[in-house]
């Protein structure tokens, strides 16, 4: 019975989701685990703080090539005799984890949101409108953890970092280019999200939305029509067809709260809604609400956020 964890650490900083996954794996194992990763990321030894005793890194794999990465993970799993393989339910995890499961004929928990009871894992279904309990009965389990589901452990340890020396074959997928779309916090990782909809009337009115997000240390998001009309970039679009997020705080401004929008944000811990229509469906899903004109309310929120920042 051993547990390993596969994470994507390619960025300049260790992603939050990777630290969560190591924490989760180590809690599942009841002790230190081996982490498997790829690319040229640094600070891998600090994953010891989340419970990794060893990090095995395939430096020459740079693209998310599911075949190379599946070979990497199943190879380490075989060496370690792993019966549980933890991954992250993000773009990289969705490419690799189901492949690992198919290869090992293992049950896959796509998006676990809590620690299991025995072999039964809780996950979101129906876009967060319900949860399901999935029992895995295969000898090997693959568990992909939903980002923002558990707090990151902050221990003392330092992991040893080992370079993977096996042969993973040639990459069949090559990354040609990564087009950066602005700086700031990536939406799925943001703990605070300020989001706006068609109620903002046009892209020229996004200044205060960005300012508020920046003051609160959060990211900006938008509803689907806003992205469709090119008022905002597509990767900011949240909801059923966009990104699903679960920040601590979601502030929705001029968004009606259609069911398909809620599907992507209903896992937020606290939801605040600002809408001039008291009948807007979003108020039913909200913890805090203000009925009023966004153009009058935003300056007040910005002023209050500046005051708060000055005090802390």
């Amino acid at each position, binding site marked *: 019975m051993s547990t390993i964890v596969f994470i994507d650490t390619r960025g300049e900083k260790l992603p939050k989701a990777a630290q969560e996954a190591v924490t989760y794996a180590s809690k599942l194992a009841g002790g230190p685990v081996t982490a498997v990763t790829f690319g040229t990321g640094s600070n891998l030894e600090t994953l010891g703080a989340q419970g990794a005793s060893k990090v095995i890194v395939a430096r020459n794999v740079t693209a998310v090539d*599911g075949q190379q990465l599946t070979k990497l993970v199943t190879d380490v799993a075989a060496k370690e005799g792993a019966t549980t393989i933890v991954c992250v339910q993000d773009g990289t995890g969705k490419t690799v984890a189901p492949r690992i499961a198919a290869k090992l004929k293992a049950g896959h928990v*796509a998006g676990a949101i809590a620690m299991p009871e025995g072999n039964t894992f809780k996950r979101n279904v129906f876009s*967060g409108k319900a*949860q399901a309990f999935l029992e895995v009965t*295969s000898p090997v389990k693959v568990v992909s953890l939903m980002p923002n589901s558990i707090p990151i452990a902050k221990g003392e340890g330092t992991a040893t970092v080992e370079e993977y020396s096996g042969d993973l074959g040639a990459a069949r997928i090559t990354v040609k280019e*990564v087009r950066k779309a602005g700086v700031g916090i990536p939406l799925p990782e943001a703990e605070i999200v300020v989001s706006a909809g068609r109620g903002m009337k046009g892209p020229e009115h996004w200044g205060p939305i960005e300012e508020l997000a920046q003051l609160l240390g959060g990211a900006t998001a938008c509803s689907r029509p806003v992205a469709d009309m090119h008022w905002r970039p597509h990767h900011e679009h949240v909801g059923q067809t966009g990104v699903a997020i679960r920040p601590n705080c979601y502030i929705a401004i001029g968004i009606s709260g259609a069911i398909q929008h809620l599907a992507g944000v*209903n896992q937020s811990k606290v939801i605040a809604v600002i809408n001039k229509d008291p009948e807007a469906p979003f108020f039913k899903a909200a*913890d805090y609400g*203000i009925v009023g004109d966004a153009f009058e309310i935003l300056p007040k929120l910005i002023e209050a956020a500046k005051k708060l920042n000055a005090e802390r």
Partner: protein
Amino acid sequence: MKILVLLSQVPDTTARIAFTNDNTQFDASGVTFIVNPYDEWFALVRALELKEAAGAGSVTTITVGGVETEPTIRKGLAIGADEAVRVDVQPTEALQVAEQVAAYAKDKGFDLILAGKETIDYNGGQVGAMVAELLDLPYIALASKLDLSRNDAGGTTATVERDVPGGVEVMEVNLPFALSAAKGMAEQRIPNMRGIMAARTKPLTVIPAVATDNVATTKSFELPPPKGAVKMIPAEDAGKLIEMLHTEAKVI
């Protein structure tokens, strides 16, 4: 260009979510079923566009499910797929579905296999990747753009984009390969009368399932606890929202 599109049937996006039999079964009473939006709007439509651009080839859809999925399968044909296959078994779990699709596809020589980003009921985002593994094909998850061009070796190379946190990743891969389609891939097509008429006579082949091992089972469901009442703040005191989020909710 031979393309296989994975089509699943799901409850409508606005369906009321409830469970019966001691919370072990989805309550389908009064629920309208549709083609999973990612499969229909993005995977299927892009497949049709690529076939049209090539001026040759075929688009086949495959659905793992009972006879009750046939109306949604016909919708795929009405939008423009050439033929449809239904594997006659109730889907219970992702690997089981993937094994059915892989068993059908393995010796058919598809150039492209397109799945949707995820089913909007089970939200796994996993079947496409599993099919790719079982067929030993490259796979790109969450693709938002797919273009094809001839390569020097006489084959076809795909350029695929996908949204990643903070930007867009542009990748290249040679055919054959599989992907899951997200928004951006294509624009929804509404079937016209001619398409609907033609769909009636297009082939819908039902094939038996292959045997698979059960690796996971959904035991039960739970609805989230109802939200407490919303706290309203008067517009004049809007600044108080920030204060309350800080001191009361402790989230900023």
